[in-house]
């Protein structure tokens, strides 16, 4: 882009990589991965980040790498989102499947609130209970290809994760710190526990490939 005559400035998430790649202008921001502007729902903070980045455009030569002076931390492992889960609806269903059904109203409320959803790698919200049921089977030792998933396990898990995290945003009274919802999901919900058990079963079956990765690093 610079060769084409565009002046660029990047928000850097990994300082070491930026030092080695030597882009013309970069502002290193010690923020959670996935939040390059630092704080969702905080326009004043985001504006400060942008002004600091754009200030680098005044430098006559590069590369320029500076640090944004404020940092934003992830939630710790002991700081999961506090989020009330729905009561059991159908005792004949697996608890995780029942839980997923029970969160549908919250998911829809969040969709109505923002007009956006990141669900859709594999399917829509109607299919989430079936995806969860497939992971219950994988956790019980059924091979991934025989469990009834319409896709690879990774893509299906991304959709389940999006569904739960967006429902959680509707149930919470604030925007959670990064990782708080992830920790809540993987350690405090039935479906999160199923995904962790499924991950262990996949690894035990020799599936250590990317498309069989269903739990983020650090939540195993």
């Amino acid at each position, binding site marked *: 882009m610079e060769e084409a005559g565009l002046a660029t400035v990047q928000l850097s998430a990994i300082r070491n990589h930026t030092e080695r790649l030597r882009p013309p202008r970069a502002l290193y921001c010690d923020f*959670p991965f996935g939040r390059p502007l630092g704080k969702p729902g905080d326009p004043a903070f985001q*504006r400060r980040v942008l002004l600091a980045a754009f200030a680098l455009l005044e430098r006559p030569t590069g590369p320029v790498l500076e640090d944004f002076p404020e940092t934003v931390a992830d939630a710790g492992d002991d700081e999961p989102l506090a989020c009330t889960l729905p009561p059991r609806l159908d005792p004949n269903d697996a608890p995780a499947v029942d839980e997923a059904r029970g969160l549908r109203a919250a998911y829809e409320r969040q969709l109505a609130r923002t007009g956006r959803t990141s669900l859709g790698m594999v399917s829509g919200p109607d299919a989430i209970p079936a995806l969860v049921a497939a992971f219950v089977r994988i956790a019980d030792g059924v091979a991934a290809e025989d469990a009834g998933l319409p896709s690879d396990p990774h893509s299906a898990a991304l959709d389940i*994760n999006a569904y739960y995290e967006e429902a959680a945003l509707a149930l919470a009274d604030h*925007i959670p710190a*990064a990782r708080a919802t992830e920790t809540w999901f993987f350690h405090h919900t039935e479906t999160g526990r199923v995904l962790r058990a499924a991950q262990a079963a996949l690894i035990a079956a020799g599936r250590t490939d990317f498309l069989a990765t269903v739990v983020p690093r650090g939540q195993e």
Partner: protein
Amino acid sequence: MSIAARDHYRANASNTVLPEFPTTAFTVAPPLREARVAIVTTGGLLARGAPGWKRGEQSFRVFAAGERDLQMGHWSINYDRTGFSADINVVYPIDRLGELAADGIIGSVAPRHLSFMGALDDTMATLRLDSGRAAAKLLRDDGVQVVLLTGV
């Protein structure tokens, strides 16, 4: 629990094999108050209902400045998505750019903005020699002078 993704990747950053650039291309920016600014993110964004990103895909998607119904279609599982779910601007600060333009701090907001998908693990030859150049041309055709790059 083991080490979180952010801490892991930062601690092991020096082990990552990266492309090498012996020189740094550098375009002198115009005064910011006169500049047309575009966002290019590697967040793997896409319009809802659009075909999903293929794993390793090195093309880009184009969004009109007024478009907000965007979803996160990135293949990586190792970063926070709830910030984007709650506030699109934490990845794609389109509303902040509009405010800066209204305040006269930047000249104008570009009519179109772009997303690639990061976490690519090969030489990125297609991006460097093909799609990256096409993206630059698209922005130049829109009169863009400054590009803000955000990743996830």
